[in-house]
Structures are given as C-alpha cells and as structure tokens.
C-alpha cells in the first residue's frame, strides 16, 4: 500500500517535526501536497469572502444616513478589499496566483462564505453584519492567528485586529438605532431577526457529519494545526458571547429555545435549519447569482485596464533595457 499524502514526508523530520513542535511552516519549507491544497482552498475561500463581502455593505455607501457613518462604512469596505489582498498574497506563497483563484471564484469552482448571499435590506443590516457576521468571523479567525502556516497566520493577525474594530462599529450602529425612534428600533430588531440564524450557520455543519468523523477533514486540519476548535465549540462560544450583547442592545434574538443552562454553563439554543444552509450553499440563496454577476462584471469591465497596465509596464521595462544597452 502506498503511503497517503499525510504519511509521506517530503524531507525526513522536517514538516511533521515543525507541526509537532507547533512551529510555523514557511513557504520555502517542504510540505505535503494535501496540506498545500487544503490551505490554498481555505485561504482562497477566505479571500473570496472578503471580496464578495464588499458588496452587501458597499450597497449602502451611497445611502449611509450620516456623513460620519458614510466615512466609517467606506473605510470598512475598503478594509475588506485590503483583507482580500493580504489573503490572496498568502495564497500566492503556496504557488498559485490571484488571477487563477479569481477565475475559480467567477466560475463557481471555489466558494465564498454563504453569509454574503443574504441581502442587506435596511441600514440596520450594516450594523447587524458588523455585530453578528464580523463577530462570528472573528470567532472563526482568532484561532487561525496561530495557524501552522506562517503567511496565513500573519495575515489573520492583521485581519482580526481590523475585524474586531468593525465588530464594535456594527454594535454601535445597532446601539444607536435601538435607542432611536420607534422606526429605528424596529429596523434594528428586524435586522437581528434576519441575521441571527445565518450567523450561527457561519460555523459550518454540526460536528456530527462526515467531515467531523474520524479520519475526516476536521481531524486532518486539526492534526495540521490549521483548525483548532470544532464547529460546534466555536458556535457555542459565539452564542455565549453574543447573547449578553443582544441584551445590552435591548434586542431580542429570534429563538424561543434560547435560555441559560446553569448546569452546562452555556446558553442553550434551538435547532439550526441546516437545510437552508445547504440550499444557499448550493446556489439557491437570495443573492448568489447577483454577487457573482456583480463581481464578474467588475472584473470583465476592468480587463482592458489590467491589459493596459501590463502593456505599459512591458514598455517601460523595454525602454529601461534599451537605455542600459
């Protein structure tokens, strides 16, 4: 029987020893093919999520109801572009390039976080995305700051710092709305109602599925130091942190089963409709088609610009060469 990728060692004592010692793997280090592929897929999906994630909030830049909020929102969406860039760069250290990854995004061969297939129906949704979606993202991402792959870990440190800033800004938007006019309060409550369950789904399927079974993706990613906590653990942690924040906001969460469990020392919560998650993941979300169309349109409309930049760079290089020769 041939050794599997994980069993195979590219250089005796190197990769596995580094992993075992909780040392970082760097681009020039040898690494198993599957480790590389897993990371590329995960980092790319993460980068795509940042880029696609610009759309639901970006749609409110023109309509932000105060100039201060407009400035904060522009800066936030711009940060997401920046996160996308760090992450594509991290992926590039693994031997792929950005245009290849973008092409996979555009043609549906790589995914982005399904949360961005939900629409932003009101201004309060900008707050809810910051509070709940960035909140859940941080919960997922903080452990990645200790990820075994160096460039990814370092990108995540930067990303998490900014995300937690965004999370506070989102909370502040809802805080202001919840204390505002009756209509504003209703808007905040409506946003919490719509974003709560999708945010819980961001932690992925429960740890009872195939991926979490022994020998599945989860175990492998944990062994490689890419994943540190199970989906359900992170989800519970998020619920435990977020419920008291909702109470502070004066907003209710749309789950009649939500109650403190003294015995467990955690908040109990209701059953998640994973059928909806799978439906949206498979393409039947309210905005799947729109998000990809928007992204592809921007990319296609910009093709001539990127070509021109390349042509110009070539000309400049050729001229420099001529000048030297």
């Amino acid at each position, binding site marked *: 029987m041939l050794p599997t990728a994980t069993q195979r060692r590219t250089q005796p004592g190197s990769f596995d020893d580094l992993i075992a010692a909780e040392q970082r793997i760097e681009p020039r280090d040898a690494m198993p093919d599957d480790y590389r592929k897993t990371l590329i897929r995960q980092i790319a999906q993460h980068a795509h999520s940042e880029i696609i994630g610009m759309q639901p909030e970006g749609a409110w830049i023109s309509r932000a109801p105060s100039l*201060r909020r407009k400035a904060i929102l522009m800066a936030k969406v711009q940060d997401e572009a920046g996160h996308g860039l760090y992450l594509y760069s991290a992926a590039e250290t693994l031997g792929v390039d950005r245009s290849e990854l973008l092409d996979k995004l555009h043609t549906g061969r790589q995914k982005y976080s399904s949360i961005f297939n939900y629409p932003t129906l009101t201004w309060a949704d900008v707050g809810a995305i910051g509070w709940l979606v960035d909140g859940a993202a941080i919960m997922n991402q903080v452990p990645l700051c200790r990820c075994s792959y160096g460039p990814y870990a370092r990108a995540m440190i930067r990303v998490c710092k900014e995300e937690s800033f965004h999370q506070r800004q989102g909370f502040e938007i809802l805080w202001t709305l919840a204390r505002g006019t009756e209509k504003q309060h209703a808007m905040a409550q409506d946003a919490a109602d719509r974003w709560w369950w999708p945010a819980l789904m961001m932690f992925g399927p429960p740890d009872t599925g195939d991926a979490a079974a022994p020998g599945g993706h989860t175990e492998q990613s944990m062994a490689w130091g890419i994943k540190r906590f199970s989906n359900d653990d992170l989800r519970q942690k998020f619920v435990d942190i977020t419920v008291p924040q909702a109470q502070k906001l004066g907003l209710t969460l749309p789950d009649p089963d939500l109650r403190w469990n003294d015995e467990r020392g955690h908040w109990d919560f209701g059953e998640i409709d994973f059928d909806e998650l799978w439906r949206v993941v498979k393409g039947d979300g309210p905005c799947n088609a729109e998000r990809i169309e928007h*992204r592809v349109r921007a990319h296609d409309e910009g093709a001539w610009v990127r070509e021109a930049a390349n042509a110009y760079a070539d000309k400049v290089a050729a001229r420099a060469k001529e000048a030297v020769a």
Partner: protein
Amino acid sequence: MGRAPDTTVPEGDSLAAAYCLQLGDDALIYAQRLGEWISRAPQIEEDMALGNIGLDQLGQARALLTRVGELDGSGRTEDDLAYLRDEREFRNVQLVEQPRGDFAFEMARLLWFSSYQAELYAALLTSEDEVLSAVAHKAVKEVAYHRDHATQWVLRLGDGTLESHDRMQTALEAVLPYLAELFDDDAVSLAAAEAGRGVAPSGLHDAVVARVGAVVDEATLTLPNDSRWRSRGGRTGAHSSAMGHLLADMQHIARSHPGAQW
C-alpha cells in the same frame, strides 16, 4: 409686476460660509461618485485606492460643511447640509456630479479635478480664514496623492494598448465640456478672494492646464480644446440631470427618518 433676479452676494461670515459651501459640495458630491467604484474597480488595489480618494474627499467635505454651519449662523450640522438641502441649494460644479463612466472617464475627471484642487488648496494655505487654511494644509497633501494616482493611470492607459489609448482619449473629450466651469469667476469666489479668504478660480486655470497638458503629452494623448457646449450654473444651483438621482439616493434614508440620530 417685474422682478429682477436676485444677484446679491453675501458679505463677511456669510460670504465665507457661501465660499466654504462651494468647496464642500464639490468634495461631497465627488466622494459620492467615487464611493460607487468600491467593489466595481478593475482590480482590488483600485477598489482601495478609489475608496481612499473618496474618503479624503469626504473628509474635506465634512470639515468644510461643518465650517459653513459655524459661519452662517444657522447652526446647521454637516449632516443637515448634506441631507436636508434640495438640489437647487447645492453649489458644486457639474463635473463632479456626472455619472460614473468607465475607468478612463474617472481617471480623466480625477486628473483634472485633483489638479484643480491642488492649485486651489495651495492658494488657500494663506487664507485669512484660519479654519479654511487648516483644511487646506491637510487637503493639499491628500490631493497631491490623488493627482499622482490619476497621473500614473493616464500614462498607463494613454501609453498602454490601442484600446486603452482610444478610451483615454475619448474620456478626455467626455470631460471637456465640464472644465470651463471649474475656472469661472463666480461672484462668491471673487468676493471671497477680495476679502482675502478665497481664490479667484480663473487664476488657477493656467497652472492646471499646464500640469494636465504635460501628463497628457507624456501619455501620447491629445488635449482636446474645442467643445460645442460647456456646462454652466453649478455654483448657482443649476445641475445636470444626474444630480437629482444622486441626491435621491444619498438623502433618501435620512429624509425618511426626520429628526433621527444615526
């Protein structure tokens, strides 16, 4: 029966307020257009760059509009001025309100507008209005970056591919009708210049044209100068057809919740 149109020019602080309003509206409306690029730019770096430039413009707008409310005695905030004025009360030039075109159009607009703002803010460094001079100190560095960014792109596009050259040339022609308005000596600017607080726009013309012309030359493009028509009236609240829709979008939520805080 008859009535002559009102051509009174305000004096003192009201004049200074009217002057800041013009500059502030230019920056605000341009920020609004630049914001539309975010998630629609040719590459992610450009989403960031145009977002940055838009943020700078928005920052200038906020400082200037806040100053308007202080000077004119109305006690209006930056948000009152941005969200609760009607189209006829906006004082920006028509160039900045034109709908987002292709990337070449944006770079043509940015090159001209940032070159104009660079000269304007440089001259305002010595304004007797200390707030305006402080705004200019910050802005003059920002718009130098905007101008540099536009310059780099006009070079790349002009001297890039055949298609990009044609598009860039077309863009220079598309912005042409809106340029004269930048340099019109409107009554408010003239009076502000006389009072030592502002600049006569016509005085900026030659330096701006020289600067843009040099870039256009280097980019192997031609500066067009023959337009069948030119825009007029932005400074007196006469705007082009795009403006109403821009304001509808910008103001709708704020207008829908009178008195609300955000």
